[in-house]
């Protein structure tokens, strides 16, 4: 059964909404700078962390809810509202709508601030803190604000969470549990503790580009130095492709692969990545030769990029155009998979590929990288990778509208 995407909502360093996203992806302005939010201060004497912070989400919640809604939750409401309205979900029976929020430990920064602020006066901790830092508070706020009554839950798969949310939403529609399922890649609100740990681990970019944040994020480039964090959030509305009644269709998810590769920590596995891609292709009924575009996981970590290139070689993707959305937005972690699938769908809609920022010296020049400017290209079948710490490998085959029906 082919699944169609009929609504998109997105927030990123480019701003709130698809208009800012659709324009910014192709213009690729620099959105990187030193992180300034409370709770993201570097260790004493060290250079500030580099990344992307989104503008304040539009005020959609009633004030009494907004004041106890985390940044993650406010961003989720913003993207849900956009996707909901575009897909016309007010016409769908609430019991037939589901919501899957991708991500875990999402509100670490605000929870760290609460620990700091109440450390000497624990007796006065606001009762609301008993639920507002749960990842599922996003589910609660979303279902309290929009008539979603099928089910709502969160799923965790580290940096593949957004992709896994999409895969789980596909399953919920295919099984008949609901008619419409919203997959939401939640904003991962990193604390200074998280940032420092990931820098110490060698996954996040070091202080090498501390003086020039615009140059720090360079997936698949010889001067890459680790991933660079970028706040983001996206919601996608999924339904059966054969049940779409008129409205907008961005594209179809033709196949998905999601495997465990047996790693505990951040170490990637090309074998797992290849297996996920082959599962996705098999489900789509396609071969590698049918893939014309690859949207990489491509974080910019030295080991991650090398391993992913090995995957491209093993699969034989030398013919495909390749770009890395993280070069523009940074790494949204839990949100990345959903935001980058949205980027693929917007590229399908616009008939062009977004540039790769900072790809001055490709690690492997034999691949068909998109350059520093957008290029006209009608995507028919795209392969989208998302990987996560803990050995999570996922791949999605995304087709232009109608491709699923023509295949069968």
């Amino acid at each position, binding site marked *: 059964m082919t699944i169609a995407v009929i609504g998109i909502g997105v927030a990123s360093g480019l701003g709130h909404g698809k208009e800012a996203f659709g324009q910014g992806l192709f213009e690729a302005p620099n959105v990187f700078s030193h992180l300034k939010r409370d709770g993201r201060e570097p260790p004493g004497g060290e250079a500030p962390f580099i990344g992307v912070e989104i503008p304040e989400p539009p005020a959609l919640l*009633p*004030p*009494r809810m907004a*004041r106890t809604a985390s940044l993650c939750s406010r961003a989720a409401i913003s993207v849900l509202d956009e996707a909901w309205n575009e897909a016309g979900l007010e016409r769908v029976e609430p019991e037939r709508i589901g919501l899957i929020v991708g991500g875990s430990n999402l509100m670490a920064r605000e929870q760290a601030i609460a620990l700091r602020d109440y450390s000497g*006066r624990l*007796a*006065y*901790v*606001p*009762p*609301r803190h008993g639920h507002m830092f749960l990842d599922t508070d996003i589910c609660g706020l979303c279902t309290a604000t929009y008539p979603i009554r099928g089910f709502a839950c969160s799923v965790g798969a580290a940096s593949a969470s957004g992709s896994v949310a999409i895969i789980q939403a596909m399953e919920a529609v295919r099984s008949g549990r609901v008619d419409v399922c919203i997959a939401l890649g939640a904003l991962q609100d990193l604390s200074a503790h998280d940032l420092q740990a990931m820098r110490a681990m060698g996954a996040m970019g070091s202080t090498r580009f501390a003086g020039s944040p615009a140059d720090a994020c360079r997936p698949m480039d010889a001067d890459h130095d680790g991933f660079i964090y970028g706040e983001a959030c996206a919601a996608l509305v999924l339904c059966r492709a054969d049940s779409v009644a008129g409205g907008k269709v961005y594209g179809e998810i033709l196949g998905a692969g999601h495997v465990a590769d047996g790693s505990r920590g951040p170490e990637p596995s090309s074998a797992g990545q290849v297996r996920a891609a082959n599962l996705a292709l098999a489900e789509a009924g396609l071969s590698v030769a049918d893939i014309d575009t690859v949207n990489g996981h491509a974080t910019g970590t030295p080991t991650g990029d090398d391993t992913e290139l090995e995957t491209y070689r093993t699969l034989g993707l030398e013919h495909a155009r390749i770009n890395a959305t993280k070069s523009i937005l940074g790494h949204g972690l839990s949100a990345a998979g959903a935001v980058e699938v949205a980027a693929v769908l917007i590229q399908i809609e616009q008939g062009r590929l977004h540039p790769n920022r900072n790809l001055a010296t490709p690690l492997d020049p034999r691949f068909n990288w998109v350059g520093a400017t957008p290029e006209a290209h009608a995507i028919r079948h795209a392969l989208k990778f998302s990987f996560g710490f803990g050995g999570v490998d996922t791949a999605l085959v995304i087709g232009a509208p109608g491709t699923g029906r023509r295949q069968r």
Partner: protein
Amino acid sequence: MNSEHIVGIIIAEIRETVPELAGQPIGRDDSMADLGVDSIERSEIILAAMEQLGLKIPMVQLHGPRNIGELADLLLTKSAG
């Protein structure tokens, strides 16, 4: 310290917690539940008021008051004791 002072603290906390009540007059004879303040919000308001008064009283000892004035009177008694 008197009951009116405590009523003022409670009302300020109510307005902070439920901004939707801006413009609505609130007095000591009003009950928070009747104003539409939910139970978690009520606990939050009482805790915030206690912190300002330097009180640490288990919430279970604060059941009973039927309106803001009675709550203020009870907090005043506890702070005196």
